[in-house]
């Protein structure tokens, strides 16, 4: 249980924020950042731990958002049930795409392409199909009651997305400590060698994709409850595929806190860029692109990964200097 302690501390610290800060602007910023952290944590499970770089996680985000919205708007289903159904639908889409792609043996560039293509197909269908509201999108009726998953206070939305992020952190931590997680990392490091040792790489990757899709879909479900609107460019647009990938890469792919740190950094940079030069379209994403290239060049393991490396290097130096000291004492 000791390994879960950092998660408890971080989540408790974040949960205290609404007690100190009442500003809606700050809370809104944090809610959006945590939502992106959740989407990114989904990507991190497949991309960070499994090494399978998806360029189309929008497929899961959008499926989650649309399922939640469609069930409420067209079928009058309760929002909380809609939320659950959205997560299930997202993971099902993940299972289908993962099953097709990994069974066909697609790797690296090919996998990135096929995920991108699936997200695009879904986007095109969502922008013409009547059930998704076609070009207009879907608007969820305003109904500010807890049973409708709508709240007057942003603090409650904040605590809900924080709870979802906490669950995603626990999933990643449990993954790191499980046999499944070790197999997944083995597949990332050397798929052929892992298979030679008897790891069923295809099954492992598909399972990772299902979990990954469920987490990112949850972010989509939350999006639609928070903004009460979804259309094709939002749900299945490239922006979410990029942000879901950007946050763990910048924060540290294959680490528990990578996506959370990355999301806070990325969103701060975005807001900072807007603050400095006014709200000119393109500027925030432009900086994201530059930051992505810089991180790959100078901190390939991301911010958290670089910190872990530095700590380990420091520990090694401490141990070796103590050994030298012991050696001289004995000599």
């Amino acid at each position, binding site marked *: 249980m000791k390994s879960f302690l950092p998660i408890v501390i971080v989540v408790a610290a974040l949960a205290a924020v609404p007690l100190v800060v009442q500003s809606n602007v700050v809370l809104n910023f944090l809610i959006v950042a945590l939502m992106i952290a959740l989407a990114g944590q989904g990507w991190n499970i497949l991309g960070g731990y499994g090494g399978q770089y998806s360029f189309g996680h929008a497929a899961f985000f959008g499926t989650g958002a649309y399922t939640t919205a469609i069930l409420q708007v067209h079928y009058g289903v309760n929002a909380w049930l809609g939320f659950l159904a959205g997560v299930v639908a997202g993971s099902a889409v993940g299972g289908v795409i993962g099953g097709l792609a990994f069974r066909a043996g697609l790797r690296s560039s090919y996998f990135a*392409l096929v995920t991108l293509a699936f997200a695009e197909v879904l986007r095109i269908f969502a922008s013409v199909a009547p059930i998704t509201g076609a070009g207009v999108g879907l608007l969820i009726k305003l109904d500010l009651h807890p049973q409708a998953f709508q709240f007057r206070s942003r603090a409650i939305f904040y605590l809900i997305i924080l709870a979802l992020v906490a669950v995603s952190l626990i999933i990643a931590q449990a993954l790191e400590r499980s046999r499944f997680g070790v197999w997944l990392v083995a597949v990332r490091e050397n798929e052929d060698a892992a298979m030679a040792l008897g790891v069923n790489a295809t099954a492992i990757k598909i399972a990772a994709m299902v979990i990954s899709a469920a987490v990112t879909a949850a972010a989509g479900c939350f999006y639609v409850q928070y903004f009460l609107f979804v259309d094709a460019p939002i749900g299945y647009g490239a922006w979410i595929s990029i942000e879901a990938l950007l946050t763990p890469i910048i924060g540290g792919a294959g680490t528990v806190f990578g996506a959370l740190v990355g999301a806070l950094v990325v969103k701060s940079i975005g807001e900072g860029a807007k603050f400095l030069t006014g709200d000119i379209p393109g500027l925030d994403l432009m900086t994201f692109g530059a930051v992505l290239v810089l991180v790959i060049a100078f901190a390939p393991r991301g911010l958290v990964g670089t910190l872990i490396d530095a700590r380990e290097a420091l520990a090694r130096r401490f141990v070796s200097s103590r050994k030298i000291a012991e050696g001289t004492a004995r000599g």
Partner: protein
Amino acid sequence: MLSAPILISAIVNGLLTGSIYALVALGLTLIYGVLHIINFAHGALLSAALFAAFFVYQKAGIDPYLAIFLLAPAFFGLGYALQCLVIGPASRGDERAMLLATLGLAVLIENALLYAFRADTRTIDLPYAFKTVDLAFTFVAVPRLISFAVVFVVALALWLIMTLTDTGKAIRAVAKEKLGAELAGIDVTHIYAMTFGLGTACVAIAACLLIPTYYVNPSAGNAFVLIAFTIVVLGGMGSVPGALIGGLVIGVVESLGGFFFGESLGQAGIFLIFIAVLLIRPRGLFGATA
């Protein structure tokens, strides 16, 4: 409604549009063949080239077809520099890092264009843009006919470079066996950058051919590149004849698909072909190995 002349003109138009797709795909397949990554910055570079062609005509009055001789070398240099100074050093040869670096560049370039020129769509007016010629069985727009011819000249030139020059031989050697080529004294960093430059030059030429009849905005290139991905996969990644034939096939499929099912579903059809090819025969119709 479904008469032969309409069908024929849809096919001919598809072939002509397909030739430009083929050119964009040619650049992509060339880069894949040597660097073994999909260049996700290809679309953003095409948008940048469209802007370049637009402003060269608008500010200097240079005809887009003549601008080829200006922009192709300029974008060759740009591609060379990007690979040599950004993608190569940032990724240190790691495939996943290279993919991410091209994605980062794509986001950077596309949004820099958005920042500089806003989302407005621009077009240029050429006196001959709407002239047509009578091919006996159908009418064809002059710019499309010119671009069809130019694409084949470019493909031929590329083929000559690849077979006759030392650089071409070195590129083919690196594509086949990188380590062996390195041991034989080939400067792989230089060859990577040359290849990236050639691929980017293809994009610049495609932009010059497109601008007379097409429009430009910061994301204009993306539509072509998603199609180019399909072509490259269909034709076999790294295969030059595959890219050419795949381009023509996709051009016709899109034209007929749009004719029968409407424009946006015609596009979805292309992606479905793409996914089907990826899943069933990922090495494509002409690719040797996956």
